[in-house]
């Protein structure tokens, strides 16, 4: 009797287990299909966009009308950007296709740069056309390679879903594969690897855009003098932190940093307060304070915004920055973050920027970031004389906007360029914009939208 009962119970359990197994199997299949579909979509998007970009660049080269040329370049810009995005989402494990990625981003950005140039009415140089021909030919090569890979994708030698899976010992894997067969093995991606290796050898590209190769070699222009020792850097860091917090700090640890600005990085501990520590980077050359971050959480605000700006300004003055103008300000986690820009002869020098963070509970300086200042500040910088008067520049503005304020400013543009402009604070409907008119040519160089956020403003 008991034997019968046991048999029934065990059979039922087995039945249950089997149905559960089938249910899990169905789940796995549907997830695997979704992953496969996503991979296929990204791959075919990549293929299509690459092909289209190549065609658009070809049309540009065949066209003789600047207006049409700008249209084709704009298309190429979008298509190459689409290809870049699709490539980045493609599941290609263990290989990083950074050269293909860079090639697509540069092609896209360069097309955009040339289209802008045409839109301004400028002519393209022979060199620029030659560069685009080069890009078009490489794009053609990439398309051909992708077509070869497409053969593998369509005959299922490459299955995107097969690259996902939990690592498990081979015997278990064999059993799992018997239960739920995986379609296709994780196939080789040689085509991608080959193309990536080939594109690594593209010559460097210099132009006025964010992906220009010359930007990777930028050096800090604002650092002068000889290298200082670690001890001296430590003394500077401690003095700075003591002044920022009105407290006393001890060095806890030191490391070196070999980035764009070679530096000693210190971690300091407050002698008077428990669990308060500060990170400070001091440049090796010249021993300047590049950045500081106090990691303490800040309590309920007690100070008002004006007091905070005064505190930040006097702190800057005490550290040798006499002519700094507060530009943007934003409240974050009970800190007020104020961005200062240098001011010379009533011109705002936006590239020479220092961010100061002030704690709203006790006015302590909790943050300092002068990286941009030391990257771009240049003692020998020549600021040209404006050729247009403010009134002449104002006439270049759209008649729709209402002007609140005007001043001269040196602004940074993509590609590490600086231009002298009239900055107009304007309003269109209820949105505020900063419009920059080149003080030498009258060209509209840039527009920033001001976005109000709690406790401050941002520009976009």
């Amino acid at each position: 009797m008991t034997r019968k009962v046991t048999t029934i119970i065990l059979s039922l359990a087995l039945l249950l287990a089997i149905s559960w197994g089938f249910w899990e199997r169905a789940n796995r299949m549907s997830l695997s299909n979704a992953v496969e579909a996503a991979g296929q979509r990204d791959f075919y998007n990549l293929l299509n966009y690459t092909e289209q970009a190549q065609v658009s660049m070809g049309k540009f080269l065949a066209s003789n009308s600047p207006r049409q040329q700008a249209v084709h370049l704009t298309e190429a810009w979008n298509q190459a950007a689409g290809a870049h995005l699709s490539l980045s989402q493609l599941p290609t494990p263990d290989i990083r296709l950074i050269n293909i990625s860079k090639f697509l981003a540069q092609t896209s950005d360069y097309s955009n740069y040339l289209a802008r140039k045409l839109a301004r009415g400028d002519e393209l140089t022979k060199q620029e056309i030659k560069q685009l021909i080069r890009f078009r030919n490489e794009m053609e090569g990439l398309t051909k390679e992708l077509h070869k890979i497409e053969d593998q994708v369509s005959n299922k030698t490459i299955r995107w879903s097969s690259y996902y899976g939990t690592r498990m010992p081979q015997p278990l894997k064999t059993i799992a594969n018997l239960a739920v067969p995986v379609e296709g093995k994780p196939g080789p991606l040689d085509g991608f690897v080959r193309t990536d290796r080939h594109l690594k050898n593209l010559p460097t590209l210099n132009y006025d855009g964010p992906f220009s190769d010359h930007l990777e070699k930028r050096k800090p222009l604002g650092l002068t003098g000889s290298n200082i020792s670690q001890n001296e850097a430590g003394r500077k860091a401690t003095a700075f932190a003591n002044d920022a917090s009105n407290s006393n700090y001890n060095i806890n640890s030191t490391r070196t940093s070999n980035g764009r600005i070679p530096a000693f990085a210190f971690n300091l501990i407050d002698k008077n307060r428990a669990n308060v520590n500060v990170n400070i980077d001091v440049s090796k050359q010249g021993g300047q304070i590049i950045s500081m971050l106090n990691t303490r959480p800040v309590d309920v605000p007690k100070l008002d915004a004006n007091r905070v700006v005064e505190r930040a300004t006097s702190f800057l003055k005490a550290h040798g920055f006499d002519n700094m103008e507060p530009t943007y300000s934003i409240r974050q986690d009970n800190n007020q973050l104020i961005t200062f820009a240098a001011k010379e002869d009533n011109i705002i020098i936006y590239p020479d920027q220092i961010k100061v963070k002030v704690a709203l509970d006790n006015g302590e300086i909790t943050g300092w970031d002068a990286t941009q200042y030391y990257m771009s500040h240049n003692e020998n910088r020549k600021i040209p004389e404006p050729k247009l008067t403010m009134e002449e520049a104002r006439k270049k503005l759209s008649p729709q906007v209402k002007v609140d304020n005007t001043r001269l400013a040196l602004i940074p543009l993509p590609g590490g360029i600086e231009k002298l402009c009239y900055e107009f604070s304007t309003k269109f409907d209820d949105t505020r914009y900063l419009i920059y008119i080149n003080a030498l040519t009258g060209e509209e160089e840039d527009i920033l939208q001001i976005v109000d956020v709690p406790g401050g403003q941002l520009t976009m």
Partner: protein
Amino acid sequence: MHLYRRHLLLPAVLVILLICSALWNFYNNGNHQNIVPTQAGAPVGTSDEIDLLARLIAAEAGNEPYEGQVAVGAVVLNRVQSSLFPSTISGVIYEPWAFESVHNGLIWRVSDLSGPRRAAADALNGWDPTYESLFFWNPNKPVSPWIWTRSIVTQIGNHVFAL
């Protein structure tokens, strides 16, 4: 009798195995229940960006010192600016195999976001202890040998940062 037992052995083992794995599954699911994955589409507002970035920082560098958390956030933002990576925060974070914690789902299980949120805000405000680094890894864990060909900027906590 003898024969009967042998017949039972295989199914019994199977049943026990399956029940164990079912329990394990339920236990795991129970752990995730109250955490909802964030989804950041474009365009994202500032607070959404902080949230997504904070989640990645918590998952990748939850046990790192504060500076190491800011550094991981900065690497994500440096990637957004780089031609080698997608140009949005969500694009960079959800790039396949880019981050271990996205691959294994840890990013959706993290719960303490207060520290990482402050670190994310500092990174978004421009603090970058890594000076434009694009990669970071733990030198004590197995990584692809390729990564060591990058030029190393510094080590913060348990992470090496490189261009």
